[in-house]
């Protein structure tokens, strides 16, 4: 029954899809870790990235231009949303934050539906990344290999930002103790705005990178959001390394399970989450 070639293929596939999940989850987790806001509009920002990229691609015909414009656009949207809406909710109860971001997600999805309709749209992979690459044990779409590369690079950039810059230092300190950071005279408000923007940027970037693989619809972010929650819970809330490890674990679980019985792949993901919650409630890399 077990075919080793297939098993290796699925392991590899899990790594690629897990990396993308890790990137989206990283955005979700740094926003929650720093701002304390569980951003339920994160899936909508991911979707918005896909559409922004689609519009840019229609206008320019260039995938790289689509990637750059779309990412910056969603980052900007994130900053605007933080300034005009989210920041008024930092001191409100959790339920209010959940409601406002949930509502925001619905508004964004429906606005896009009004503008573009429900029919799927797609952005083709760039010509240099179309086709198939033989990897010995497996043939694999070239574009997905490219995705793995650019997602790894994006995660690397996020890592540098969080661990090698002053902003990153403040963010990480903020995750540990926001009051203390404030008391030290650091402008935590500006940091919050940037963090929300960076989180949105990551989601938007992932949305465009994903568009050639999964056709975009206004609802494309819905399922991704759920999977990202699982990733964040497994990895540990607020933990950047946790998001990466959690993303890859989730990708592997879904991919490898599907080899035996595809209908269990989603179930196994939630089972893994439940297991983590029982054994280590703070998540694999969580601290509290």
């Amino acid at each position, binding site marked *: 029954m077990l075919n080793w070639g*297939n098993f290796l293929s*699925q392991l590899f596939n899990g790594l690629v*899809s897990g990396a993308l999940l890790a990137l989206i989850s990283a955005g979700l987790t740094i926003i929650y870790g720093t701002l304390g806001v569980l951003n339920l509009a994160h899936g909508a920002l991911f979707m918005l990235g896909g559409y922004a990229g689609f519009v840019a691609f229609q206008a320019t015909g260039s995938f790289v231009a689509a990637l750059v414009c779309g990412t910056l656009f969603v980052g900007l949207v994130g900053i605007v949303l933080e300034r005009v809406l989210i920041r008024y909710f930092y001191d409100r109860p959790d339920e209010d934050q959940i409601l406002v971001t949930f509502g925001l997600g619905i508004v964004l999805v429906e606005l896009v539906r009004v503008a573009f309709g429900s029919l799927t749209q797609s952005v083709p992979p760039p010509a240099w990344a179309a086709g198939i690459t033989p990897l010995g044990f*497996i*043939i694999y*779409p070239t574009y997905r290999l490219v995705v793995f590369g650019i997602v790894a690079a994006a995660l690397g950039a996020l890592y540098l930002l969080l661990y090698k810059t002053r902003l990153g230092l403040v963010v990480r300190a903020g995750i540990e103790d926001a009051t203390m950071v404030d008391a030290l005279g650091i402008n935590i408000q500006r940091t919050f705005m940037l963090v929300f923007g960076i989180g949105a940027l990551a989601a938007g970037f992932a949305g465009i990178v994903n568009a050639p693989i999964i*056709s975009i619809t206004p*609802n494309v972010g819905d399922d991704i959001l759920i999977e990202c929650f699982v990733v964040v819970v497994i990895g540990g809330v607020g933990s950047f390394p946790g998001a990466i490890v959690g993303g890859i674990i989730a990708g592997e679980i879904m991919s490898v399970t599907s080899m035996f019985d595809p209908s269990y792949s989603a179930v196994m993901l939630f089972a893994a989450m439940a297991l983590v919650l029982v054994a280590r409630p703070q998540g694999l890399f969580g601290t509290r």
Partner: protein
Amino acid sequence: MTHHDKKGAGLTRRSALLSGAGLLGAGMFSLPRMSFAADYPPLGNFPDGASGDSVFVGIDVPLTGTYADAGADEQKGIELAIEHLNSGDPLIKAISPKTSTGILGKKVTSGVADEQAKANVAVQNATQFITQNKAMVVIGSVSSATAVALNHLAQDKKVLYLPGISGSNDTTGKDCTRYSFRECHYAYSASAAIVPVLLKELGKDRKAAYLTPDYTYGHTVYDSMTKFSEAGGWKTVTNQLAPLGAPDYSAFLLNIANSGADVLVNIGFGNDAVNSIKQAKQFGLLDKMTLVMPYLSPFLAKQVTPDLMAGVYGTTEFWWTYGEKDPLAQQFVDAFSKKYGYKPEWGAHAGYLQIALWANAVETAGTFYPPEVIKAYENGEHIKNSTLGEVWWRAADHQLVRPVFVVKGKKKADMKSDDDYYDIVEVVPGEGIMQAPDAFGCKLGDAT
């Protein structure tokens, strides 16, 4: 206004009979139909939903999620039919000859709700239509999971339900109910229609891999397709069950790539079909396997591009070029494209015909009293003229006996217009491609 309104005053059967008898004299001078209605006890939304100047149709379709595009198209077809009823359009009169305007002289109104292709949401919407709007009929579905849920709700509430798109054998099989009538083709009839074409065109010695949505629709299409194709000599090498709305098919496609199959039978529908076909192309599967779509999703060729659909065989409930053969079909295609600016897909057609056939049944019954309407549906009379030619209902399982279209994707270069995606290979008559009415365990239940 009429005796109907006395319901709240605690009518007993005896007093109803007495007052009915008393009104009989008056009734001779008024509309005879109104006085006959006095003989029927309240049931479901009768008489409340039919006592005013209008009757309400609850349109319950997915407008978001995986099946949103097909749902929106279906809604348009239903609304066009309602518009045609209210204006007394010749097309609807051809299908329902007793129709003048509206239904039984009442204007038809409607409301629409988004059921998101989720059974629980569909049931909530329908319940609201039934209790608050006093709907006399609820119509619409794209997912069979919602259709079977509404079948049972309709039976409980004693309000008619008409599925729009529903491909599962269960809808008029084990989950059939007395209050539900399905117009469209389904797993068994689709498979019986397409497999002979596949055996002839692709050969008998083929190895098939299936990509199947993991719910009643996918399961029954898989069952019917394997039954017919294996009998014809095909081997089934793998069945990959994917959840409804799965965005990433790579894991399933890798299993199929390693299965040794040379035919990919893709049962996916809506966005699932779009994503899985595009990804199959990216994995190189479509270069070494022949793609077959046994239950073709609306707008598929438009979304995946004709390049990927050229040469692909599928079945559909309706394809607009059939208008060249059938004048009523052409009238429908013309009216629809004039109003909405594109050629109708099959969800729209199914919705339109369902409303027309409902009007025909109510007009035949002469009342909205549900058991009488059901009797009219079940009377076995053939509907001589429709957008599909002659059709008729099977009383035993409430399935419409109707032709199935086997189509083949066109190359981009061969398309004569923007919407000219398919050639009609064959229009297979309905009688020969249906199972015995009880083969899938249909027990209709009572009308009262």
